């Protein structure tokens, strides 16, 4: 009983200390920043299609994503991307640049712990689940289509 009371009190204390963000501005900024990142991606894709007209759509998109990933990890290295993330919230997490940032940011931050245990281990703290879930679900989808294909 006393534990419960203490937990409640602690939760109240934690809640009072969590930095409060006003939802409306972050919603607005996440919309603007997220939209702009997508527009940037469309721009890169259109430029690739103009430069290499015979390239397939799928390859052009793959290169577009690689360029965006490069830009995001570079900006993360400069410390700019995390600044954007502070006010853009979901706008900087949901695009593929957020995935790139989630790999680059911890690897730079934990560099001081060494290359193996710092960079290589910590780079997957957020990307790990994304890759695991992605791999598992793609195998499941492949398996289902394989079964369907047999009939």
């Amino acid at each position, binding site marked *: 009983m006393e534990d419960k009371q203490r937990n409640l009190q602690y939760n109240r204390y934690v809640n009072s200390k969590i930095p409060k963000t006003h939802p409306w501005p972050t919603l607005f900024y996440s919309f603007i920043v997220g939209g702009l990142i997508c527009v940037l991606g469309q721009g890169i894709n259109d430029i690739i299609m103009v430069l290499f007209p015979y390239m397939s759509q799928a390859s052009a998109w*793959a290169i577009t994503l690689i360029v965006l990933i490069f830009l995001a990890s570079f900006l993360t290295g400069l*410390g700019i991307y995390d600044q954007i993330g502070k006010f853009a919230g979901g706008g900087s997490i949901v*695009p593929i640049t957020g995935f790139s940032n989630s790999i680059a940011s911890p690897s730079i931050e*934990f560099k001081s712990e060494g290359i193996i245990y710092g960079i290589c281990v910590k780079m997957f703290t957020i990307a790990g689940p*994304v890759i695991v879930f992605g791999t598992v*679900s793609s195998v499941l*989808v492949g398996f289902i289509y394989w079964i369907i294909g047999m009939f």
Partner: protein
Amino acid sequence: MDIFLTYLIVFLVGGLVCMIGEVLIITTNITSARILVTFEMLGVLLQAVGVYEYISDFAKAGVNVPIIGFGASLAKGAIGAVKTNGFLGIFTGGLAATAGGIAAAIFFAFIFALIFKSHTKK
């Protein structure tokens, strides 16, 4: 005029997807890893049931740049590889289709981690 409309749609759809992510963050306090996984799984699901192509034809980068597109190409790769390679495709398809993105993210993160110093978070 056509290209302007395309970019407007990309901006609106992309912005909306990201805003939905932000709504999830505000209302449920979920971490960014869960946000990424949630949207990725949404992409896998949309591709698996076969509606992603239509959405992507309409919104282009608006859904391809958010991690939904990453999930969709995982599923698309798996489906395509099963059709051409059969059983082996189940395991090779997904990662093969997204290898570019994963390799780029790991490579650039590693290189920039060696080059740049950590910016302490205030």
